[in-house]
């Protein structure tokens, strides 16, 4: 059985990664998790300049979900390269750097700096963050901008480019197709849903920004539906995520058409989720006599 995943001429050792923003730069989880079992670490978003992140509080629990308003808090690309990459490079898993920006130019400059840095497997282009005023989701809801941005970044790297899609659109397939047209090697699907919680006692939103990004089991059906739709609209691999907490959740995504998955919020609940999911996928494929992940796609037309 071959569980590797081919994306843009490279291979991920297995289909189970940890989602951007939920695993930091790896080090934080080292005492709790065996990184050799992780297919890919998608880093917290990296931006051109350091960002302090949004005002506090930043987290609020919702039914079977979590809303975050971290706001792309990160040390900036220069310190990322000097302080975080030396450690990331030593990890036994692929490192995909999640890139965010507030203009096309910013994305390009971050990517160019990262291109000088060894040890990076590929890039995940975050055009779907709901927690920033400029850039982020504003890009990701417009097919023309997504295509242009992707094409521009495509010229600057031979590493795999994965475009991360937002579910907060009328038709996610149009955005996915735009990414493919622009030259993306894969899309990841989905980022968080726009959500809001109001503190009734205080009579104001819990999060200072008002809205935040909803993740966790609550959104899994939305992610599976999006993955199903997108994987039928594009020919590049789809990386499914949103609410995966165990092997059966991940298999829903893979059967729906995903070639790989990411674990986000579930890491907070059980850091060993990734390992459990990988073991469960392997077991299922063995039992069902499935020889590779692609082979899982034939069951649902």
């Amino acid at each position, binding site marked *: 059985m071959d569980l590797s995943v081919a994306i843009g001429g490279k291979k991920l050792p297995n289909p189970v990664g940890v989602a951007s923003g939920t695993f*930091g730069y790896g080090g*934080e989880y080292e005492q709790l998790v065996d990184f050799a079992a992780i297919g890919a670490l998608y880093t917290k978003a990296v931006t051109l300049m350091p960002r302090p992140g949004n005002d506090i*509080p930043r987290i609020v*629990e919702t039914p079977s979900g979590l809303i975050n308003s971290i706001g792309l808090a990160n040390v900036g690309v220069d310190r990322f390269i000097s302080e975080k990459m030396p450690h990331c490079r030593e990890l036994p898993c692929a490192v995909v750097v999640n890139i965010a920006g507030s203009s096309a130019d910013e994305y390009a400059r971050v990517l160019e700096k990262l291109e000088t840095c060894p040890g990076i497997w590929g890039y995940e282009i975050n055009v779907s963050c709901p927690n920033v005023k400029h850039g982020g989701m504003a890009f990701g809801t417009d097919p023309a901008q997504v295509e242009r941005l992707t094409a521009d970044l495509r010229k600057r790297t031979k590493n795999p480019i994965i475009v991360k899609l937002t579910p907060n659109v009328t038709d996610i397939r149009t955005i996915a197709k735009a990414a493919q047209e622009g030259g993306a090697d894969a899309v990841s699907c989905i980022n968080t849903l726009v959500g809001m919680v109001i503190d009734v006692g205080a009579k104001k939103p819990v999060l200072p920004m008002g809205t935040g990004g909803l993740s966790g089991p609550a959104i899994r059906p939305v992610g599976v539906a999006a993955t199903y739709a997108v994987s039928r609209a594009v020919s590049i691999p789809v990386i499914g995520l949103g609410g995966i907490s165990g092997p059966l959740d991940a298999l829903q995504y893979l059967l729906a058409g995903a070639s790989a998955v990411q674990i986000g919020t579930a890491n907070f609940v059980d850091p060993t989720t990734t390992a459990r999911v990988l073991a469960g996928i392997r077991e299922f494929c063995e039992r069902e006599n499935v020889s590779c992940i692609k082979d899982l796609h034939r069951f649902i037309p």
Partner: protein
Amino acid sequence: MKQFIAKILSHASVSDCFFELAFAWDAAAGPVLPGQFCTIRVSPYSAPLLRRPFAFSRYDEKTGVAAIAYKKRGPATELLSCKPAGGTINIIGPLGNDFFRFATAGYAHFYLVAGGTGFGPVAFLANHCAQRNLACTVVLGCRTRSQLPRLNLLPSVKAVVCTDDGSEGIHGTPLTYLATLSPMQYASSAVFSCGPAPLLAGCHEWALARGLSCFVSVEQVMACGVGACMGCAVRVTDAGANGFARACTEGPVFDSRRILWT
């Protein structure tokens, strides 16, 4: 730090709103210091979803027993309170920094101030000090006598109780008591405080006005508990930290002068 399934050794109510849950510590997770916390996954289902952080109320390396003391506040603590002795809980810990690392400097005396859910870690810290012959006074505040938790303090720990309704000890809050202290009493002291934000702020101001050090354990909603998500940020004064520090790893204990009080 380790994730493990711990056996619940005892689980009892220690006041009309407090519970103490003692469990078998996994030595491989390393020793536990006062101020540190663990996170507990309370439900195997998705609601409530997140692990919940609780400070240790005691830890005995020899017997391998750790405990937390908690108040029922919502769904997670409600579910937790139903777990019987003999059952198990899913633990990650120890997490965060500890109070005690701040106690190295040459202080002559410590005021350990607790309100609400702060009782547990302060009791742990008091006993820890007593075992090391460090002079300390525990100042406990709660609404009324029946809420006062029965947490075992060593005989050498001096404890002052304050109740909002005067039903036990001093009529008032721990801040009422602090305000009565004379310079002779607080000279060369430091304050450690854990409890509701107004109590922490009050301790900070009291200490600041007297040129004393104050260390506070802050609460913030946490997602990962290990420093990865940036969710538990609190506002700090140092620009080096970009104005934010993570309560789960850079804290939960901070020098109160580092906190941006609002």
